Structure formats: C-alpha cells, structure tokens
C-alpha cells in the first residue's frame, strides 16, 4: 500500500516558459556548446582552462534543470505532502528538520574529501579531454543520479543504511556481499590515502612539520571547545585556521634551518610507521579531543579552498599545457597507472564522477535531516555536481603544469632514477621533454629538495594550485607557501578520513563480531574497542607498508584496486536503487539507474578481468607475479624495477595479494548482480508491485522551498504562512 501512495504524489506545475527564461537557457546552451567545441576540437594549440570551467558549469546547469528535475518528479515522484522522517520523528538530535542550505553544506562536506583531488590528477596522464568528458558525463548520468536516488529511497525508509536496504530488498546474499564490499573498500581506501600523505611528506621537512603541528592545534581546539568556550564552533575554527597558517609559515623557517631541517626530515618508512601509530591512537581517543575539532577545521578549509581555487582560476586564466589526448589513452603504457582508457580511466576517476562511497552518506545521516522530499534534488544531485566541479578544478591544476614536470612527479622512482638528469632522460623517453634544470628549478621554487616521483596526486595538485594561487596572490615569492598550503590542506583531509574511517570500520567489525561474541557489540567495552581498532589499522597498515615499499610503485599498484572497490560499492547502490524502482512499479523508468549500473558493471568487471588475467605484466597482477617468480627460480638477483632478491620477493607477495583481491571484487559484483536480477524478474512477473519497506504516507505540516534559492512564488507562500502563523521551516528561512 505504501507504494500506491507514492504514485499520488503532487507534481508541481512546471515553471512557465516565459521569453526571459527561454533566452537564459538558450544562452546557457550556447555557452556550453561553444566551450565544449573549444575543449573537444582544439588540437596542438594551448587553450585556456576557463573553457573547461564553462563547459562544466553549463552542462551542470542544464542537467540539474532538466534531467534531475525529470528524475525528481517523474521517476521518484517526490511528494511534498508527505512528512519526511525528520518531521515525523523529530527527536531534536539525529532526526531534525534542517534548513536545506545547511544540509547541502553538511552533505557536501561529508562526500567530498581528498578523493576528487587525486583521481583526476592521475588520469591527466591521458590528457585533459578523456578525464573532463568522464567527470562531467559521469556525474550527470551516474554519480549524481546514484546519490540522489539512494538518498530518496533511504529517506522513505527512515534513513536506513545501504547495507540494510540491500539485505531487505534484495536478500541476505546481496546484503553480505555489500557488507564485505564496504569493509574491503574502507581498508584499501585508507591505505591509498595514507600512502598519498606519505609520498607527499617524505623527505619534506616543511610539509611534515606543518602536518605534525595540526595535532597540537586540534588538541588545543578540542580543549578550548570543551572547557573554555563550549559550542563556539566558528570562533574555535577561526583560531584553528590562523594557527594552521602560522604552522605553514613556520614550516618555511624549519626548512631553512639546517638542524631543524634534519629533525623533520622523515623517510617513507618512518612516516608510514608514524601514520599507523597515529591512526590507532586517534581512533581510540574520545572524539572531542582530536576528531571533532579537526573535522570543524577541515570543513572550513574545504569550503574556503574550493571557493578560492574557483575564483583564482577565473582571474589567473591559465592555459592547459598537457595535450588534449596523449598516446597513453590508447596504448595503456602510461607511467602513472597502467592500462588503456577503457576501462582504467573510469576506475581511476571515481570521486567526482561516480563514487559508490557516497551511497553510504546518502543512506546515513542526510536522509534523517531532510525537510521536504523535493529537496533531494538540490541536496543529492546538487552536492554531487559540486564535487564534480572540484574534480574538474583538480584536473585543471594538473594540466596547467609543464607536461615534463607532470610526468617526472608521477612516475615510479624505480623508472626515474635518483638524479634530475636520469629523470629528464626517462621523461624524454616517454616522448615529453624536460631539462634537468627545469626539474631542479621547479623543486627550488617550492623549496623542496626534489619533486621527482612525488606520486599519489597530492603534490601534483599542490604544484598546480600553487601556480594558480600565486598568479593571483603574491606572485613567484609566494609559490612555496601556496604549495605547502595545498599539501597541508589535502593531508588534513586525509588524516581526518584515516581517523574517521578507522572508527567506521571498527564499528562495523564490532557489529559483525558481536554476532559471535556478545560483549563485542558494546561500543564502550575497552578491550573490544582496542582489538577491533588494531585489526582495522593492521588491515590498512599492511597495504600502506606494502605499497610504500613496492618496487613497482604503490600508487601504480593499489590505486586501481581502490577504484575497483569504490565502483563495486556503486554497483551495490545502483542495484538496490534499480530493485526499488522495479518493485514499486516504475520499471519503465528503471533505465535511469540500469544504464549507469550496466556501465559500471562492464567497467569494473573488465578492469578486474584485466588485472587478473591480462598477459601484459604491466597490467595483470598474476602475469607480473609469474615474471618475478620465474626470475627468482632462475636464481636472478635483480629484475625490472626490483634491485635485489628481497624486492623481487616483495613483488611476488604483493601481486598475489592484489590479484586475489581483484578476483574477489569481481566475484562480489557478479553475486550482487545475479541476486538483484533474480529479484527484478520476480518483481516483473508479479506485475511490478511487490511490497517494499517504505514507510506509509503521513501528511506533512511543514513547508519549505525546494531549491537553493526560493522562487518568487515560494517567497509569496513563505510570507503568507508567516502572516498566518503556520509552522514553517527553521529560523534561517524567516
């Protein structure tokens, strides 16, 4: 019966096509078309990065106005006469009707972190065009759709989690597969992100000092907020930001002082060890000490830097120096990650285009806070468009660099050698030229010893951002400051994710182990807390350590696994969404999630297949393993990038683990898809009206605008309601 009420949803009258509106949208379409033709058709000449921005913004506007609107009102049939869980339950805590603009901010801050800054930078090795196309088309037809649809279905079920929905709507098999997927992705994600930090800060006293300083700063903020000024979040964050800027400036002095320089110069392995210890301690400390204050700080920095970067790109108007398409898109020989455009571009850029992880946020906190059903468009679809825009800016930051510098920063150390001369020679072999002097000057400009093989995306993004920022603020003299500012900004996010992710993983593990041994489920039972934290940290710590010491380059090896895991989660989310559309009698619209699901499945399965079965040792884990195992059996003492027997053994172990994981992910996807198909067929046979777990319709008394900015009609209603004393939304709308 619940499904029947959904169909009677009130569809608002679509806005009238006045001449002014037609003119505006025609103009948006023209700007978009011109920008896309410049981006797509220019060959050989450098174009301004602003064209990418225009193409993106015009496409987002059209998609939001037409496609998202179609999904909201025709497919999902949102119903503003229906009270949302926030209105019905309204417990003053996790269920509270929240102003849509505030919730947009919360949701965006929860989905966007370092992910959209890393993937596009790595994918830039194929040129700017493939990445731009996937980020923009992917978000419009897959990523934003997934986020919004999952948000909607979870909202109709009192904010149930993706795992719960998979279990209840598809079945226990799908549910278990989803749980394994979530745990696996968490471990790989944390390892890859931690590796990004290690690669960015190793041998860099400036960066290491400023990041270490974030710990006392966060502690200070935590104590201030708890004992001195409880609740003064903005004041505390402002103090934190000022201290953070001082820490970056202080890093410059540390770097210039020979003794202190030595003191903060850490090797890769020292940092790895430090991060693992930090990860464990941070995740067992109470949140008010470290996590909560750092969360406030990173939200501030996130919004601030995104705005700053967008404004700076428009003022600096930089040119894209990387070609539109490089040969690596086709031959799969790229140095940053191996494999051709299809399928590897689509798993390298996950956050920003389609990210399964978002489904966890869309089915967690956000659906419990939403005020009106129609706001899922702005919050679900809109936030994801914003993240996609961040990804486009990250791509711009990578593509304005000298291509030679870009490749020197992103190739594995084993290929580049130790000197700028050998690096220059290696880059030239790729078909891009860069002089040893340029490489040295670039490192000097940001006051680093070396920029060679700074893989992981963060340093490259920081270098591009430093160019853009310093063109607007401070010029060449400020390059080093801006570079370390950007590094710090990314490292800050990542530390927050490492801490929060370890906690999330720990809770899942406690819950799972609680089935076997009851006390485990008690989240305040200390031995259980320590044990599960240690297990999660050991999980990502292992991959981090193995990746950092991998002779073939940890990012090169692990990033594809992270991408596959993330897209596996997207497959779960899209399969659940499709199941719900079919079960509630909307099979004729199910293509909105089936098309991205089919694409996602093809991409992920092809990538896993190649990672497992490819005979090209650059791509297939087992082909790689066979090569090194054979060399070891032949008694050779060095092979490829591995200089000694120990390194060769490392390659054999790592490729075995990575290969088995790839296979496991592929099997999980197949299980979930098969199980979902079974339910779809059953639902279609039943005429498409199977019971779902939707909450029944309760009339709503609240009223609030649907979009970011209230329309003229909505403002009139607001005034009328204010006059008659009817209940309205939160104070912020008055």
């Amino acid at each position, binding site marked *: 019966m619940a499904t029947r009420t959904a169909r009677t949803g009130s569809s608002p009258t679509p806005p009238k096509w006045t001449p002014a509106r037609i003119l505006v949208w025609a103009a948006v379409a023209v700007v978009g078309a011109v920008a896309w033709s410049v981006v797509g058709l220019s060959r050989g000449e450098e174009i301004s990065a602003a064209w990418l921005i225009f193409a993106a913004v015009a496409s987002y506007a059209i998609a939001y106005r037409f496609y998202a609107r179609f999904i909201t009102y025709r497919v999902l049939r949102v119903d503003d006469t229906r009270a949302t869980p926030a209105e019905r339950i*309204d417990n003053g805590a996790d269920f*509270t009707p929240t102003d849509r603009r*505030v919730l947009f*901010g919360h949701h965006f801050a929860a989905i966007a972190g370092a992910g959209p800054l890393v993937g596009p930078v790595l994918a830039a090795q194929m040129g700017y065009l493939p990445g731009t196309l996937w980020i923009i088309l992917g978000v419009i037809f897959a990523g934003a759709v997934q986020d919004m649809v999952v948000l909607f279905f979870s909202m109709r079920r009192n904010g149930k989690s993706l795992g719960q929905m998979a279990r209840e709507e598809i079945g226990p098999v799908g549910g278990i597969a989803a749980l394994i997927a979530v745990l696996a992705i968490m471990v790989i994600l944390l390892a890859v992100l931690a590796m990004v930090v290690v690669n960015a800060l190793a041998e860099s006293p400036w960066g290491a000092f400023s990041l270490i300083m974030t710990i006392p700063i966060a502690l200070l903020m935590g104590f201030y907020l708890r004992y001195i000024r*409880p609740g003064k979040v903005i004041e505390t964050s402002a103090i934190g930001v000022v201290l953070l800027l001082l820490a970056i400036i202080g890093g410059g002095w540390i770097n210039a002082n020979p003794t202190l320089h030595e003191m903060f110069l850490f090797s890769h392995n020292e940092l790895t060890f430090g991060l693992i210890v930090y990860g464990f301690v941070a995740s067992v400390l109470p949140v008010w000490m470290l996590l909560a204050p750092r969360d406030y700080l990173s939200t501030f920095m996130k919004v601030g830097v995104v705005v700053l970067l967008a404004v700076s790109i428009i003022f600096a108007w930089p040119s894209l120096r990387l070609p539109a398409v490089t040969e690596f898109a086709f031959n799969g020989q790229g140095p940053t990650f191996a494999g051709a455009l299809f399928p590897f571009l689509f798993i390298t850029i996950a956050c920003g285009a389609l*990210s399964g992880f978002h489904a966890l*946020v869309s089915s967690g906190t956000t659906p419990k806070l939403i005020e009106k059903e129609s706001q899922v468009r702005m919050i679900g679809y809109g936030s994801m468009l914003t993240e996609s825009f961040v990804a486009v800016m990250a791509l711009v930051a990578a593509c304005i660099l000298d291509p030679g510098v870009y490749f020197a920063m992103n190739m594995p150390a084993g290929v580049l050698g130790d000197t700028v001369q050998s690096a220059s020679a290696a880059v030239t072999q790729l078909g891009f030229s860069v002089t040893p002097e340029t490489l040295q000057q670039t490192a000097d400009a940001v006051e680093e010893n070396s920029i060679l093989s700074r893989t992981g995306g963060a340093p490259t993004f920081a270098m591009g951002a430093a160019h853009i920022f310093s063109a607007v603020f401070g010029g060449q003299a400020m390059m080093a400051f801006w570079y370390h500012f950007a590094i710090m900004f990314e490292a800050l996010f990542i530390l927050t994710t490492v801490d929060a992710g370890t906690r999330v993983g720990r809770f899942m593990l406690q819950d799972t182990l609680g089935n076997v041994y009851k006390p485990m489920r008690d989240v305040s039972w200390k031995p259980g807390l320590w044990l599960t934290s240690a297990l999660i940290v050991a999980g990502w710590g292992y991959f981090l350590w193995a990746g950092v010491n991998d002779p073939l380059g940890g990012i090169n090896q692990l990033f594809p696994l992270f991408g596959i895991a993330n897209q596996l989660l997207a497959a779960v989310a899209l399969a659940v969404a499709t199941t719900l559309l079919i079960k509630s009698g909307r099979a004729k619209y199910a293509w909105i999630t089936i098309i991205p699901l089919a694409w996602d499945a093809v991409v992920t399965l092809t990538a896993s297949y190649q990672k497992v079965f490819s005979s090209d040792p650059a791509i297939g884990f087992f082909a790689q393993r066979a090569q090194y195992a054979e060399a070891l059996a032949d008694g050779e003492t060095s092979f490829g990038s591995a200089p000694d027997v120990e390194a060769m053994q490392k390659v054999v172990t790592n490729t075995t683990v990575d290969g088995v994981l790839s296979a496991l992910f592929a099997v999980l996807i197949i299980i979930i898809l098969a199980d979902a198909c079974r339910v779809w067929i059953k639902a279609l046979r039943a005429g498409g009206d199977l019971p779902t777990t939707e909450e029944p319709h309760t009339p709503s008394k609240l009223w609030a605008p649907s979009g970011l900015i209230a329309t003229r009609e909505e403002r009139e209603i607001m005034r009328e309601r204010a006059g008659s004393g009817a209940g309205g939304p939160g104070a*912020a*709308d008055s």
Partner: protein
Amino acid sequence: MSGAPSGRAPSPEGGPTGLRARLAAGLRDAWQVVRGISGERAYEIYLEHHTRVHPGTPPMGEREFWRRHIDRGDTDPGSRCC
C-alpha cells in the same frame, strides 16, 4: 559579521531604508546558514525542540549539552567519504 553594510542608491520601489533592511536580512540569513553548516546552532535547535516537546521541564544547560552532543560521536561515527 551580521551587521548590515551601508545601503546604497535608492531603488525606485523600496527607497534606501527598504533596500538596506533587505540586504541586512539577507546577510543575517546567510550568517545563520554559515553557523548551521559549522554546527554552531545545535544548542539553539535543541532548546527550540525541548520547549516545544517538553514544555515546563528545565532544559539541559549549555555546557552539559555540548559535552553530550560531541560525545555522541564516540558511539556513532557517521560516514564520511574520501
């Protein structure tokens, strides 16, 4: 922050004071949204909810509230993406 900047040229329908008032209201609104996103309005939201649902009973003090509010994170991590 919430103070209104000086209004500018009179508009045909509103006059300088009308425009200034509208601008001030807009800025106040924006400031409340910023406070909302940062999480600073949690206590106000609680108080409003408390007086509506449990009228007559004394609400939690501010310090006590914030302590519990932040400590909730210890048992409910909330998800965050990359």
